[in-house]
């Protein structure tokens, strides 16, 4: 059959330069993506742009909303809390996630099981998980009961509605975003390198420090960025388990929208978006991180 078709396609190929200046076949991927692109344009890109525009043209063209941020104590405190929480959460995820990623990669028969355990919370809604943390961390929650039973405390301590509660819950929710890129990087390390290091006189710890850790840095960078940027925009969890005075940027935005203070909300959103983009832009320039970007994009 292909032999019959060949002369025709050959003829087409020869005549293409004159008769077919535009190659429709190259447009096929674009056409396939067109419905989604259109959807995203109408229901996502346009509203975002419209919303962001409110920060500079409400009520008329002005940059005054941004200018006021420099004297805005509430904004500065909120921004600092948001940034601080994101850093803490990211570090927590890294410290807890790296060993898990190593375990995941080293486990053979157990690997699918471990993966399900890591991903199970991932498939549960953030809202449900935040409620679960409220139950666990409350005054009569499991954590307090356990500490009382062990005699480590005399009366229930306040965990819920503190920054610590926010950090614990966010670390739990964001852990998979840290574990998976690191596990991916670890999996790509040729096992013979680890054997070679061992054979050349390197103890397991020295092998980890000199070979495994440096070769997994691309995954660490990708996981750190992903976790940090996601943590910056977290809303539900800090709103539910966090302290009433520890307001994050996203909570402040929601509050301003509630009060129909659109221009201020739009300005804060623009700042949050700009911060996330700026971090990505700077991180891309770092050696090693750029590679992680390219591989995670592939």
């Amino acid at each position, binding site marked *: 059959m292909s032999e019959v078709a060949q002369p025709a396609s050959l003829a087409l190929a020869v005549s293409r330069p004159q008769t077919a200046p535009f190659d429709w076949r190259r447009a096929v991927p674009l056409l396939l993506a067109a419905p989604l692109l259109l959807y995203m344009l109408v229901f996502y890109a346009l509203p975002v742009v419209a919303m962001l525009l409110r920060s500079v043209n409400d009520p008329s063209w002005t940059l005054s909303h941004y200018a006021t941020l420099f004297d805005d104590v509430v904004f500065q405190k909120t921004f600092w809390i948001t940034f601080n929480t994101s850093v803490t959460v990211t570090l927590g995820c890294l410290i807890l996630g790296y060993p898990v990623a190593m375990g995941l990669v080293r486990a053979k028969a157990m690997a699918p099981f471990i993966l399900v355990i890591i991903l199970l919370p991932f498939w549960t809604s953030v809202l449900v998980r935040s409620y679960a943390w409220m139950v666990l961390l409350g005054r009569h929650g499991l954590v307090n009961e356990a500490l009382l039973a062990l005699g480590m405390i005399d009366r229930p301590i306040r965990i819920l509605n503190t920054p610590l509660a926010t950090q614990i819950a966010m670390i739990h929710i964001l852990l998979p975003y840290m574990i998976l890129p690191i596990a991916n990087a670890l999996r790509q390390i040729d096992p013979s390198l680890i054997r*070679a290091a061992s054979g050349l006189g390197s103890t397991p710890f020295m092998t980890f420090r000199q070979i495994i850790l440096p070769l997994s840095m691309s995954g660490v960078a990708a996981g750190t960025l992903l976790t940090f940027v996601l943590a910056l925009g977290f809303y539900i969890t800090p709103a539910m388990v966090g302290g009433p005075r520890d307001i994050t940027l996203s909570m402040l935005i929601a509050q301003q929208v509630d009060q129909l203070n659109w221009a201020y909300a739009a300005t804060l959103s623009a700042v949050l978006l700009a911060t996330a983009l700026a971090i990505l832009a700077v991180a891309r320039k770092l050696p090693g991180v750029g590679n992680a970007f390219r591989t995670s994009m592939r």
Partner: protein
Amino acid sequence: MISAGTNGADIGRGASVTLSDLEKTYDRASAAPKDVDRVSLDIRSGEFLTMLGPSGSGKTTTLMMIAGFETPTAGDIAIDGKSVVAMPPYRRNIGMVFQNYALFPHLTVEENVGFPLKQRGVPKPERARLVAEALELVHLPGYGARYPRQLSGGQQQRVAVARAVVFKPRLLLMDEPLGALDKQLRENLQLEMRRLHADLGITFIYVTHDQEEALTMSDRIAVMNDGKVAQVGTPEDLYDRPENRFVAGFIGESNFLPAVVRGVENDVVIAECDGAVIRALCPGRPASGEKVTLTTRPERLRFADSAWIGEQMPQNCLSVTVTEAVFAGERCRYMLQAGDGTSIVLKEPSSAAIRRRAVGERAEIAWSVADTILV
């Protein structure tokens, strides 16, 4: 000397390695054959020993057990008389070159070669000197600042060798180190490996499935098959006096002639093959009437009427028919058939002076008793 254990002149520069009844079974549950089955080998100090065998013969597994990356199921490994089975790889002080070189991609050539020295706490200036020396040894001076990916396959291989010998181990293990290179380069590097072995004077254990490589480089070869050692000996031993059919067939080309034993005279077996009396060398004493296989090399057979026949040894003779004749440049290759249907290959050096045989022609072939082995 950096390496530990070089304590005195009683032991040479190379380590001796003794494998006793070494066994490895990956799948203990099933009745599958063992991956390594009662392998016993005595590797002498300073020897170049090659483990040769097809894939799955257990040669690499044996090497990995010596290196310490695999734990034997049974048996013992002793280096310089001391058992190392319980010792982790990083304490064994063995150099190793991997099949894919296993160079650390994030380290420069200098850092790669200096790696084993760093692990041993060698101070920086000393390290730099030894690294330079090792790179000199493998003819790669001036490449220290490059990364492995900037090197060709052959250069990477040299770096891997430099890294494996820089800390002056007394034993070097190599797992098909030339397998990924093209033929020309492989032949050059084979010679370099021999030179390196002579220069360093340490013990080399080399694993390959390439018989030519094994024959060219080794002092002794251990032929492995199905997890067992089929034969250990010098390249000449294995080629001229194979002890079993596997070795005769795996190393070089062999003809196998079915025969029946008629008697034994000193070390020579008298057997009957296709109605002709054939004499063969045999260390054992097979019983009369026993069915055996005789083996002989194609290039050691001659047509009886050609002028090549020497008179120094008694000859075996057989009548055959030519079934195929191929001119291959430096030699002619004939497919022959004996009266009982046995196929025999004969290789004759080509010369314009020698008459070429035609297909269907009947001929007499002759060869020396010394080139006939009972397997």
